[in-house]
């Protein structure tokens, strides 16, 4: 049945190729418009603007960077969803709440460690363990958690987020999904909605419904073009002084020995230490997964099973072990992504994962269900869409735009942009 469905999907993709061309054309048009805007050229007919306009390079670079950061977070979360979707054959609507649970577990640990470090632990243990749920206790400003001041707290949080979500997903699989292995994907999907609801409101029960601040301080790195030379600085004042030809002594300022943009001077992008942490940790985790899947026997078994579960069963691949590994990897990465996204935003609320879930689905579908690299690429694409679309549409529509892109992909290429290339 699965193969005939896949074949039917494939047939659809062929029939719909004219649409693919159409949307490809649209994409090219938008790209041209972006170029025109950057150069500052505008094509007009009467009072209506056809193409182009103006757009500062710095704004575009910032949008792309933001898109990349968000996209890597989504991609990281998407890997798990993609794997469970193809290996267990159901769309896990609780995945977003795994992300939330991981974030809360991780941040509870980070707050405890930071509280210990700053001497605020005494008498506040429960307050810290509920990530500051309550009126009395040290605020995030007092704890001032960030990668530079409290690296241990941030790292401990990440580890707990990963481990906590792994345990959670294994326990939930044991209680809820394992007894449903022989049921249809839709039945399991419905059950996963129940899991999502229960998890989310247990989080509310324990941690409260409010949005809380998590971090304080941290460093930032400004990339700017100073008289045509790319330079890094850690303060805006340094950049401004440098642009007027006077680099303050003692300040952090490094010019890059690369291309010369003439006399172009502008601030391009500000990179925070939290963003950098997300990017670096995500990439490291993704690479580690890549190595695991390529090199180990288990990884090969997982890829085989994602391709064809029946075949895997016949050839004697221990399916339950693969399922467990799937939850371990998927759950762990979901927890990590929740923790890192909360770090990057600096805030955390109970609906973090639910609001991300559709974007994660979008990434997974875009990349093709079952493909791990697809999920990463899809995540980055969705992040970029979400962010760069701001050039054309008001910010209140950017999430809607990402969803619309997902619907388009589902309709035009149900197998994802990279078409039917399965796991890894």
């Amino acid at each position, binding site marked *: 049945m699965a193969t005939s469905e896949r*074949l*039917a999907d*494939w*047939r659809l993709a*062929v*029939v719909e190729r004219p649409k693919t061309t159409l949307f490809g054309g649209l994409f090219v048009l938008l790209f041209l418009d972006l170029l025109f805007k950057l150069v500052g050229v505008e094509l007009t007919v009467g009072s209506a603007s056809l193409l182009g306009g103006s757009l500062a390079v710095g704004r575009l670079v910032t949008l792309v960077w933001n898109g990349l950061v968000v996209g890597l977070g989504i991609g990281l979360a998407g890997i798990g969803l993609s794997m469970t979707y193809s290996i267990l054959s159901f769309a896990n609507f609780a995945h977003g709440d795994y992300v939330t649970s991981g974030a809360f577990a991780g941040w509870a640990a980070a707050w405890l460690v930071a509280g210990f470090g700053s001497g605020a632990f005494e008498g506040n243990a429960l307050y810290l363990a509920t990530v500051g749920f309550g009126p009395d206790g040290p605020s995030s400003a007092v704890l001032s958690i960030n990668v530079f001041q409290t690296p241990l707290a941030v790292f401990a949080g990440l580890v707990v987020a990963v481990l906590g979500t792994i345990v959670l997903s294994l326990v939930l699989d044991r209680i809820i999904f394992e007894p449903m292995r022989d049921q249809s994907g839709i039945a399991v999907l419905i059950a996963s909605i129940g899991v999502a609801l229960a998890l989310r409101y247990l989080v509310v029960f324990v941690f409260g419904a409010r949005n809380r601040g998590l971090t304080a301080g941290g460093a930032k790195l400004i990339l700017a073009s100073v008289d045509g030379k790319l330079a890094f600085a850690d303060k805006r004042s340094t950049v401004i002084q440098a642009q007027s030809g006077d680099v303050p002594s003692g300040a952090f300022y490094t010019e890059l020995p690369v291309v010369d943009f003439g006399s172009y001077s502008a601030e391009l992008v500000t990179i925070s230490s939290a963003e950098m942490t997300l990017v670096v940790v995500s990439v490291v985790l993704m690479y580690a997964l890549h190595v695991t899947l390529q090199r180990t026997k288990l990884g090969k078994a997982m890829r085989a099973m994602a391709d064809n579960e029946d075949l895997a069963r016949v050839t004697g691949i221990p399916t339950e072990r693969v399922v467990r590994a799937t939850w371990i990897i998927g759950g762990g990465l979901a927890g990590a992504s929740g923790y890192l996204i909360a770090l990057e935003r600096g805030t955390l609320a109970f609906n973090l994962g639910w609001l991300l879930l559709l974007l994660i689905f979008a990434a997974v579908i875009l990349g093709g269900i079952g493909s791990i690299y697809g999920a990463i690429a899809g995540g980055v694409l969705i992040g970029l869409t979400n962010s760069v679309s701001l050039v054309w549409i008001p910010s209140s529509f950017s999430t809607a735009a990402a969803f619309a892109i997902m619907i388009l992909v589902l309709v035009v290429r149900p197998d994802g942009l990279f078409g*039917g290339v399965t796991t890894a």
Partner: protein
Amino acid sequence: MTEDGTTVEGSGETATADRSDEAETEQAVDSGESARRELDAESASLVVEDLRKSFGGIDAVDGVSFSVERGSLTGLIGPNGAGKSTTFNLITGVHEPDAGRVAFEGETLTGMRTSSIANSGLVRTFQIARELEEMTVLENLMLSPRGQSGETLTNAVLPGLRGSVRDEERELRETVWETLELFEIDHLAEERAGNLSGGQRKLLELARALMLDPTMMLLDEPFAGVNPTLEEKLLDRIHELREEGLTFLLVEHDIDLIMEHCEHVIVMHQGQVLAEGPPAEIRSNDRVIDAYLGEDV
């Protein structure tokens, strides 16, 4: 190899289009070929021309051509993976062929929707019976007939129009019961289709297809999992229907059964037609025997 015209030369009586390379070259020099093809077109109910379909680089059906004579009981055999079911799916529009053409009673089917093909009188059954599990046997049969006015939403819902729908349903009910009696499954009328035994499902599927009042039926392994008594019954039914003028194309694993009951047999192998002709010729065709070597003939 004795491909020297066993199936082509002089058989004259039935449609023959052995598309294997050797046979093709021989046919090409045969001056009588075009005349015979025209004759085929008139007596053939279903014509399949050079059908091709590949899935992910594997050619499931690789240039299949044959025709089925009107009113005949034609058998389609071949080892597992020969492309029989895919051919059925291509004929009935479930898959779209990469190349080739299917014509039924002079009308091109290629590109038509599965539902339109069924409505044109070409009805199929499935290899693994696909009964509508949660529906009763009665509902399964009531579903089939073409052009039911109550399938239009307004007729189904609006007070003034429902009377005629009910009258129509009453008439259908009679036909359905008659069909159930004919197939001797009237005692199962109220049963959910999902509760039937394998053989009963096959009967139900055949009865349900028959309710469409087809001119030709494509039966995909109708006897798989059916006990011998029931198989006899099914075969009797098929022969009766054939005498009433129905055309049958029958995919079957049991070669002896095909040889005994079909007057014309098509053999597929690796997505191509290996041979075709009367059972006696097929039985002595070395290439067919080669293809089945290792399998139970």
